[in-house]
């Protein structure tokens, strides 16, 4: 890890640091001595950043922004990592299978991917949450875990075709290479060829796009919150943005702080994804 860090340029180091910080927030956030994210400070509503007691300020309701960011990191990162990991895995398996086998299976999988891609993310998420994790009567509270689960499932469904197509495309180019024929001419089983020869070549592309997808998912989660079908307890970056949408004029920090955090996280993900792609790709060679 230290060696990897030394190889990084300054931009990648900052990104790595930022992601580590967010991960730290996500894991130990509720032990950090900060104001309760769900209790408002009646004496300090809508104060700007660097106010006493509220480093990043408060929103119009007097809720501490830093505390909300720290505690919201858990949900935001959990949702994005789980759905990208799960969606990336399922998508890659399907994509590699389709491209390696070709024929009817490829046709079916590829058509399914195309159909899934044609459904707008938010409409899909909205529909799933509305049907599976919503009550017609707003007085009856929704089970937060159920809501979280449905959001993760819908974002996973969004990710599957994106990474699946990347995996399929990369596999198509690699599986016709001579070294695959060479492996076959040594009597390798298909499973061995895929695991040993195709996957290592396909992975760099999946990493790069996977990190991009983390950004996409964090934003999508925010958008779902904005539409009113986000996380129930309101502790996520997206939920923060959604909650303060109407108070931008008198407490701008309540909007730009979470947006900035979200944007920085997405940028850091892209930067690290790019670094890993370059680092893991020995084909480029350093002579």
């Amino acid at each position: 890890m230290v060696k990897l860090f030394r190889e990084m340029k300054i931009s990648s180091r900052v990104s790595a640091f930022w992601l580590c910080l967010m991960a730290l927030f996500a894991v130990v956030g509720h032990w950090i001595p900060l104001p309760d994210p769900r209790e408002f400070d009646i004496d300090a509503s809508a104060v700007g950043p660097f106010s006493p007691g509220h480093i990043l300020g408060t929103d119009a309701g007097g809720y501490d922004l830093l505390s909300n960011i720290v505690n919201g990191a858990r949900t935001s990162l959990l949702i994005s990592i789980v759905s990208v990991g799960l969606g990336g895995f399922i998508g890659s398996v399907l994509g590699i299978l389709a491209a390696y086998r070709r024929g009817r299976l490829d046709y079916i999988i590829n058509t399914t991917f195309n159909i899934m891609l044609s459904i707008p993310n938010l409409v899909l998420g909205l529909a799933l949450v509305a049907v599976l994790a919503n009550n017609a009567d707003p007085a009856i509270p929704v089970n937060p875990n159920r809501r979280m689960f449905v959001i993760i499932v819908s974002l996973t469904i969004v990710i599957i075709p994106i990474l699946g197509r990347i995996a399929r495309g990369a596999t198509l180019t690699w599986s016709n290479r001579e070294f695959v024929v060479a492996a076959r001419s040594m009597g390798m089983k298909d499973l061995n060829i895929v695991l040993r020869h195709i996957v290592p070549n396909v992975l760099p592309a999946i990493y790069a796009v996977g990190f991009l997808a983390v950004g996409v998912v964090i934003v999508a989660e925010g958008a779902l919150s904005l539409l009113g079908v986000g996380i129930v307890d309101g502790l996520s970056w997206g939920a923060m943005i959604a909650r303060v949408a109407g108070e931008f004029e008198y407490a701008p920090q309540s909007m730009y702080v979470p947006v900035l955090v979200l944007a920085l996280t997405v940028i850091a993900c892209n930067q690290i994804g790019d670094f890993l792609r370059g680092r893991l790709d020995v084909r480029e060679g350093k002579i």
Partner: protein
Amino acid sequence: MNTLLSIRDLEVGFETPRGLLKAVRGVSLDIPAGQSVGIVGESGSGKTVMSRAAMGLLSGSNLRRSGQVVFDGKELTAMSPREVRDQFGTGMAMIFQDPMTALNPVRRIGSQLAEGPRIRLGMDKKAALKRSAELLSLVRIPDPEAMLRKFPYQLSGGMRQRVMIAIAISCNPELLFADEPTTALDVTVQAQILQLLSELRRDLKMSMVLVTHDLGVVANHTDFVAVMYAGEIVEQAPTAELFANMKMPYTKALLDSIPNIEMKSGARLKVIEGRLPNPVDRPKGCGFVTRCSYAQQKCHDEHPPLVDAGSGHLYRCWYPLGHTIARKP
């Protein structure tokens, strides 16, 4: 002499939008145990497709293959893909044309080389790596231990081809297909690689099929030669017999197109004018007719059969070299 690989009436075609592309048309060939057989022909004559089809490496929904291939008493063409696969590596192995693309760019030499012994011979990792180092020294790579840890991009073309050879022989195959093993290499390295192959073949008692477009290579490294043109064998004979007693004008033309050291500087190289016949819609008659300087009317009208000239020499020509009929100049 017993036959290790026997190919009978092998036909290979590919379904294309323009029609069935016949790449190999009825090839029959025997590879005797312990011998080296050369397959010669120009680009597009079907050498590579023939050798891959004989081994059973071709696949795809547009492939049309017929004929019979018998390896070591087992009929490959009647076996399931799984059974054929079990013949690979330990029975048959192949060295590929371009060592730049036939090695996986993202894996170390050691793991690629140890793969065969581990999976096909069931060795554990340590034994397989030890065997890999032995194989590398067998193909004369200095400091094999260090080589195991390198990536393909760190090697020169000749080194990569040596690694490819080491991979191919890693499971002690009885039959080695060498598909233009030196085409992608420098001329200086070509001779070394061919020499290495010949020595390995002798030491490890393998049979070899050497596919090449260079009759000069064949003369030095094979016992028997088959000349392919447009998907057919047009002449086959023991190597010495072929060079002493060429029958087919195409073989002669191939030989004439090799540059000679006694040529005057500035003299033009001899080329074979014209092109291969269209493999989708081939005219009747001899495939070489449009390019042959001895062609007669009969050559345009009728397809020549294989004629036996004795002592294993077969040729496919109506008017072979040395024929008494009056020829066009």
